[in-house]
């Protein structure tokens, strides 16, 4: 536990870092991954875990996400995706589905959403999984598995937003949404992340999609530095 550092950004999930009896840090909006990169590079013995939301990680923090994944910096990024900016009152964000209603897309969202597992895989993550909040035990197992791996790991957790997003779109209570997950989610491990469908109404493909190995950034830095110091 002394090696764990839990880092969060801003949003509904932002306060998550405060729930751990571990070293933890609550950054500004979008910057959790950049902070975690600093932590990991400065002290590679530490195990950073970033917990944040879809808006934080993929809109304002999107650049940090793709570059940390590209570098393959060792960290686990857990994204709680509720399809909107919940904490600020339910505005549309980078994962808001086509035509969905939010307070800043009152006539239906015309933007195309990110498929987060696809972004993560394309950016170079070595482990990519998606579960819904209902898959609590499978999610726990994926987290355990990801923590054993070295590199940039990404797990998306589809989560209800009963007070805002689900209400605006008339999906019912949190319980209704969770029941919907049970009905429409399918587990398809090693599906091509590009094809890992995510449709709130019809089908959510869950599972572990990517589990691969490649050299990790701080290991490469250390190797290079060791080589240079011997000169």
């Amino acid at each position, binding site marked *: 536990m002394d090696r764990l550092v839990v880092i969060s950004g801003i949003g509904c999930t932002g306060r998550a870092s405060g729930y751990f009896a571990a070293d933890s840090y609550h950054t500004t909006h979008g910057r959790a991954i950049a902070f975690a990169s600093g932590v990991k590079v400065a002290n590679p013995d530490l195990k950073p875990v970033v917990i944040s939301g879809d808006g934080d990680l993929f809109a304002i923090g999107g650049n940090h996400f793709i570059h940390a994944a590209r570098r393959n910096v060792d960290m686990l990024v857990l994204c709680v995706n509720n399809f909107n900016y919940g904490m600020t009152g339910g505005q549309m964000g980078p994962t808001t589905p086509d035509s969905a209603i939010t307070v800043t897309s009152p006539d239906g969202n015309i933007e195309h959403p990110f498929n987060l597992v696809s972004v993560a895989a394309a950016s170079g993550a070595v482990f990519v999984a998606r579960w819904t*909040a209902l898959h609590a035990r499978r999610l726990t197992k994926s987290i355990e598995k990801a923590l054993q791996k070295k590199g940039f790991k990404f797990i998306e957790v589809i989560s209800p937003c009963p007070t805002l997003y689900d209400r605006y779109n008339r999906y019912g*209570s*949190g319980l209704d949404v969770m029941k919907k997950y049970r009905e429409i989610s399918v587990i398809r491990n090693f599906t091509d992340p590009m094809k890992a469908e995510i449709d709130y109404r019809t089908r959510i493909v869950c599972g572990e999609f990517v589990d691969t190995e490649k050299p990790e950034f701080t290991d490469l830095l250390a190797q290079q530095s060791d080589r240079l110091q011997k000169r």
Partner: protein
Amino acid sequence: MLTRQERTPIIPEEEQATKYQIIVNEDWCKGCGFCYSFCPREVLEKSTRFNSKGYYPPEAVNIDRCVGCGLCEALCPDFAIHVEEKKAKIKAKKGDK
């Protein structure tokens, strides 16, 4: 093939009945219903009394059916549920160490 009579139940009912307890911090509950709706053994049910916030917290009506899977604990968005093995078992665990 073993006949049904020959098989030993994996979880003997009588042992099971004393194994787990579910502790609910009722005042943290916001009544979402996840715990009792998704309990695979139908251990939990919505209670009929209000908590201090005006929600109906869950109660373990069939605790003898609980297999300690912890799904209710994991699903609770408010950290209001805690599933644990009963004390006898806990003692044994400590002794193991």
